[in-house]
């Protein structure tokens, strides 16, 4: 078990190191000179301005020198300053991380919970009206573009269409200028979160439901289920004590992989609802070619996925001894 653990941790570290190096070069080979982009379309621009800006940003150094500085800085937790705001990258990310964790975390939990329930019941009563209905719904939810659904939700529930009343705010994290505190602030944030949360929950739900359903179907055909029935157990017992625990294994991987992506946020949904999270930050950083910020963000996203993968691996080994042995 210790060897298994050490091996997995080593693998994760190796992946992380690769990501670190890859990150740096990825952004340097992207087309487009950030300085020219920053200044394009502005008046009073001279070659001198460009030179100043380039020096201010450290872009006049040779590439290997930039890489050494970057590696040392990353290891010491110094991610530099954003090219566009001048604020520390860690501060930029720090202020955006909680809205994303809140939104994507809440919808991941809700969609996993509901999705698994739907999958379990659909799979258990395969071919029933509930199964057909939920399958159809899951497929639609799974395949539909999130941002498109988000815009529909926005148009219907924020602006109000037909019999839908205009209830919720169109975007943002809180009401600007309202200066709410305490419980009123919590309610304000919940109101702002309602629409993006609804969109994400519906969008994620389908995947969980479909995977859980097929997993249940797989397990239902196993011998131990037949044995359980032969022992005379009630259907509910066969389902909850024998089938579900075994069928949950593949969904654990999915859940932890999804948790890893929590940090990357839901880029398109944050964009549609102006939710000030990491996804939105990523979009603006890409638009503005904000290298330091993008590097830190991508590192964070990769690290989150790697760490949660590691946790899933370890948990798997705990839940299913066969994995350890193999």
């Amino acid at each position, binding site marked *: 078990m210790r060897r298994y653990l050490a091996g997995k941790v080593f693998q994760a570290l190796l992946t992380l190191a690769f990501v670190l190096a890859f990150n740096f070069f990825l952004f340097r080979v*992207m*087309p*487009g*000179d950030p*300085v*020219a*982009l*920053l*200044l*394009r379309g*502005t*008046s*009073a*621009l001279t*070659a001198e301005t*460009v030179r*100043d*800006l380039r020096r*201010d940003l450290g872009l006049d150094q040779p590439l290997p020198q930039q890489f050494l500085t970057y590696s040392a800085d990353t290891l010491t937790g110094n991610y530099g300053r954003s090219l*566009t*705001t*001048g604020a520390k990258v860690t501060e930029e990310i720090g202020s955006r991380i909680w809205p994303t964790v809140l939104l994507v975390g809440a919808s991941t939990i809700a969609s996993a919970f509901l999705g698994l329930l739907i999958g379990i*019941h659909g799979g258990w009563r395969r071919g029933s009206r509930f199964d057909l209905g939920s399958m159809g719904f899951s497929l639609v939810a799974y395949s539909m573009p999130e941002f498109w659904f988000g815009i529909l939700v*926005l*148009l219907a529930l*924020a*602006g*109000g269409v037909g019999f839908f*009343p*205009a*209830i919720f*705010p*169109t*975007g*943002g*994290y809180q*009401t*600007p*200028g*309202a200066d*709410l505190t305490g*419980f*009123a602030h919590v*309610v304000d944030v*919940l*109101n702002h979160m309602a629409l993006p949360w609804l969109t994400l929950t519906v969008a994620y739900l389908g995947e969980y439901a479909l995977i859980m359903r097929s997993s249940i179907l797989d397990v239902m055909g196993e011998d131990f289920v037949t044995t359980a029935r032969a022992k005379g*157990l*009630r259907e509910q*017992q066969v389902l*909850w004590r024998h089938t579900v625990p075994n069928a949950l294994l593949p969904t654990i991987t999915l859940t932890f992989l999804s948790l890893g992506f929590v940090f990357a946020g839901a880029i398109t949904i944050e*964009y*549609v*609802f*102006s939710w*000030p999270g990491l996804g*939105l*930050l990523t*979009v*603006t950083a890409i638009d503005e*070619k904000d290298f330091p910020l993008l590097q830190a963000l991508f590192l964070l996203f990769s690290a989150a996925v790697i760490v949660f993968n590691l946790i899933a691996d370890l948990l798997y080994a705990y839940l299913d001894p066969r994995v350890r042995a193999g």
Partner: protein
Amino acid sequence: MARRLPAMIAATLLFAGPTLTTASAQSPTPQDETITFVYGDSSEPSSFSPFKGYLATEFYFWAWSYHLPITFAVDDLGAVPDFVTDTEVSEDGTTFTYTVRDDLVWSDGEPMTAEDMAFTLNIYKEKHAYLPQGYLGLVESVEAPDDTTVVLRTSEPTSLYSGAAPYMYTYILPEHVWSDHADAPKQYENVPSVGSGPFFIAEYERGQFVRMERNPHWTGPEPHIDEMIYRIFNNDDAVAEALKAGEIDFAYIDTPNVFNSLEGEPDIETFVGPIPEFDELAMNAGSAYQEPEGAFEPHGDGHPALTDPVVRRAVRMAINSEELVERVQLGYGVPGDSIIPPVSIAGARWEPSDSERIPWDIEGANQLLEEAGYTDTDGDGVREMPPGSLEPGRPLELRYYTQTNDQNTIDAAPFIRSWLEDIGIRAEVTAMSSGRLGNELNAGTYDLFHWGWIPDPDPDAILSYFQCEQRPPDGRTYGNNDAYYCNPEYDRLYVEQRTTLDPQERLEIIHEMQRIFYEDAAYAVLWYPPTFQAYRTDRFTGYQSQPAPEGDLLSGYSRDVALSLRPVGGEEGAGTSTQARGISAGVWVGIAAGVVVLIVILMLVRRRGVSEDRA
């Protein structure tokens, strides 16, 4: 057992039902008398520091919080005294003595003096403030001998600083704040700011909003609003919905179709106004064929035919700007000609007379090319270069670049391509990111491209871009003159207008420069796009178009609207935009309770189902 689930949900909703109302409809949360004007757009400010901000967005905040030496008139963008009340120009035209106001107070209570202006102009120049330094090119020194006098000296005689036009677009900053950041002013974010105008920037949440508060020491006319909030959205649909729902009072929209969807909505007025902006189809006038000069080395591989003004003129003749406005801009906007847009300081724009205008004329363009020797010798529909030219026999096949992030450039391409085909020029259209296009322009590896500019109201800056010395010099370095236009006569006139003392004479030179640039046709100015605005008629009134009669309703160049905006129906009828929307706290508690009850019931049901047989 599970079948009971839907019934439970229904029960939860029933319980919550009577309180399911919007928060703004119920008894108000503690409401003070604050009157807040809220407007929205889909643009993030680049910076609030005048040292490095470069987007139109931040100018609104600067205009409300700072003074310019001379500001822009609301009706025609002409000169209006702002901090400077009187200007004396020395006879040789190199010394400018300004008398400045002594009744202004910064929002932190410090008086505003001549020293602030001298400090600001000096540090803008010394520390290379991105935009402001361009207006200080001829400035040699700025001093403040006393509290109400500023003396500015230039290296050459000029009329630019005479106060006859709002040339110095340089917001005056408080020395007592910025002197602490004098070493690296670009590092200072300037939030909250200390302002001399009626408002100052109080708060900024990136991606969310900017909030301005009243300057308690403002001595001018009392504004009718207490606060201004700028809401930042990421797409036009969200802006439009927020306006419809009353979350914002005023909106800027970018896309014509979203704008069209707001027309006829109750309590919403829509308004199209021109801004100083143009779109152009630029041609590589010879990056690879021009003589080395100063820092400039010939580079790139533009098509040699485009070095010939006759070919460029034929291209211009083949483009129907009117149809582009109709089909691409959905009828909004104005067909383009000169690089000085209709919105600029009075008298600056030149318009071609009937005899000067290069008309849309496919036949005429064909004839022009035929006479110049560009004939289709092999009968494939594409003309070839004449004998004795740079590359005899080379077919007129051009690369034409558009931008993936600017739909207008993509939409216009099929039209332009087919018109060019009509005159025997084949264009291959490629869409790319603006970043990559920028690189191609610096490298000179293009023939045609579609982009745009937003010039200042004063024409100096945009005219300066097309001097020979502003060409990208070496294939790697940025230069404004992206068409590689180089005409010594144009350069001579540029220097002359800059150092011409009589304002009227200067305008005449500026007209001549535009005429030459138009004739030489390195840019085919396609159209002048408008700005789309919409506002709620039940909230605020007092908007003023800048310039009149149909420009920017928030007067982005000056602070006029900050002082004239007022709630419809007096101060009591204040807008409710800052009131929180959504469902009330009670409903949320109800929902939370319902979820908990649901989970408990589910677990009980499960446990019973599983354990029954065990008993």
